[in-house]
């Protein structure tokens, strides 16, 4: 079994009356990518800041590569590469000068930083641009330089706080291919938060944070398997009318529009009766029905189910529930 590069054990942190992170336990091993999802205000950034040693937990322990963050913060931080959504580069310095700066901050001397720097620039595909000023880089290149600065001291663990939020799909592709290579070739562990489901599903493990807690955690395939055979997909129009009609049928637990289709969460026992009822609805209400079939659930389906349960007690859910009933 691979070693635990990150172990957070029952950590909590409050700001005044607000409990930002509640009794959270999380681990990441070498060669693993842990994808963290959750809305703004769920505590993801507070968690990241505690894990990288910028903020102390009120209680609980953090071990990085076996080192206790509280007792040996400097040693623990040596093993961490951290990239936040709003990382900053020195616009007036060149690519090489930026990397050198971050290397020196990390305590690397010239004999160490020079070969390492070239190696990383080669790795992220910026070797041809070492003398270009950071201010003149495209968005994608900046992203790569940001990753390079986080890698300069050979970290074992990467903490990435929404590194791809709002960036070009082309850049997201390149960034993820680099991450996967790092995990495979250098066996680093990665904790990455992301707003994109398609990124989360390619992680070894995913976790969903709500209100400071991890409300769902597991390997994506496993999470999907638990819901298989329970999602009906309907293509037709108008979708909003379809949705209202479908939500009323017995056996339909939830109806959500996904792009240009409708996903129905259905009790496995009711699959056939719901399908028949929908076809009947199409005839009676003269609605356009292109296709209806059971599909593999998506991670979105899984998260929405968990969220619906989680919010069952809250007013927001009651209200939207009434609206669509």
């Amino acid at each position, binding site marked *: 079994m691979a070693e635990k590069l990150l172990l957070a054990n029952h950590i909590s942190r409050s700001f005044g009356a607000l409990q930002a992170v509640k009794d959270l336990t999380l681990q990441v091993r070498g060669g693993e990518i842990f994808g963290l999802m959750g809305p703004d205000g769920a505590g993801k950034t507070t968690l990241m800041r505690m894990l990288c040693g910028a903020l102390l937990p009120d209680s609980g322990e953090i071990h990085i590569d076996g080192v206790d963050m509280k007792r040996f913060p400097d040693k623990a931080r040596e093993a961490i590469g951290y990239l936040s959504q709003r990382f900053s580069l020195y616009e007036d310095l060149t690519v090489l000068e930026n990397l050198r700066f971050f290397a020196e901050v990390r305590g690397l001397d010239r004999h160490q930083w020079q070969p390492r720097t070239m190696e990383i620039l080669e790795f992220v595909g910026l070797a041809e641009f070492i003398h270009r000023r950071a201010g003149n880089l495209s*968005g994608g290149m900046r992203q790569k330089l940001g990753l390079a600065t986080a890698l300069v001291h050979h970290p074992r663990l990467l903490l990435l706080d929404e590194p791809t939020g*709002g960036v070009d*799909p082309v850049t997201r592709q390149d960034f993820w291919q680099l991450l996967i290579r790092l995990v495979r070739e250098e066996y680093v562990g990665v904790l990455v938060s992301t707003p994109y*489901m398609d990124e989360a599903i390619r992680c070894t493990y995913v976790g969903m944070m709500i209100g400071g807690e991890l409300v769902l955690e597991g390997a994506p395939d496993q999470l999907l398997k638990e819901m298989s055979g329970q999602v009906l997909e309907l293509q037709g129009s108008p979708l909003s009318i379809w949705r209202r009609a479908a939500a009323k049928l017995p056996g339909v637990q939830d109806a959500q*529009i996904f792009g240009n289709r409708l996903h129905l969460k259905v009790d496995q026992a009711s699959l056939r009766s719901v399908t028949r009822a929908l076809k009947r609805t199409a005839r009676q209400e003269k609605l356009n029905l292109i296709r209806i079939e059971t599909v593999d659930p998506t991670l979105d389906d899984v998260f929405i189910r968990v969220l619906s349960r989680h919010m069952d007690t809250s007013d927001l859910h009651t209200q939207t529930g009434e609206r669509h009933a």
Partner: protein
Amino acid sequence: MPELVVQTHNLTKKFGDFTAVDAVSFQVQAGEVIGYLGPNGSGKTTTIRMLLGLLLPTSGSAEVLGFDILSHPEQVRRQSGYMSQRFALYNDLTVWENLVFYAGAYGEKEKDHLIATLDRVGILNQSRELVSTLPVGWRQRLALAIAIVHRPRLLFLDEPTSGVDPLARRSFWDLIYELVDDGMTALVTTHFMDEAEYCQRVGIMRAGKLLTMDTPEAMKRDILPGIAWNIRARPLLKAIAVLEAVPGVLRVGLSGNHLRVITTRDTRKSSLRRALSTNHLQSVQVDRTEPDLEDVFLALAQEKDQFVYSKAD
């Protein structure tokens, strides 16, 4: 002929040497939901700010709700609602107090109307709560209430769903459609491709240029140069390298836990399978699939990059 609520002609904004919005022309009809798609920094917000008369274009022109944005910006703003990306709410005021404050700026004082507005967006029960204690999904609804309290006919929503959970995202889109049913027109920016699928027409921005604006179906039909495939194979990175070398393969990329491949129309499943199995990849599965808007975006980006490179040569 339906009413045109937005018309732009070569709308351009430069900041020094940097062209933030580059000769953008498009039209929006009353009652449409337009998705305005593009990464950060592609010019979406700058476009909206010009359409609201908050920022002067460097060149080009635009009419919003029949008013020229240069000569009649006040009329444009009186009849348009705007929810900005980083909406400003007063954290130490209640939901109700926030709405009263902003409504007052438009001269809306009628209590029944304010109540109806909160009800419309589903947060009437929260009206006495302090904004600082609200989850982000409710704050977003309050920001929407503030954007519609003066009964605008046209709504500009700038990345309204970033940072909320998937359930809140979905119900927010339901709200947008309900408002449109009530007679509004909405232009919504987003960087989530799947959200754009909800829209009747979608504009795709990249580096200041509006690359296209059309229905999602038409884009998939006209812009994508071939067939989309979902391919499973292990290890992923080796599979990418193998597939890139297959004749007819136009693009290979990660998509969720598998690969997304675009090929020419005459490429056969068997040739993709054969390439993978002769190179000893594991658990190979090749399925033809329907294209999505991310495929369209990547195809457009590739086209444009090639154009830029050939121009530089």
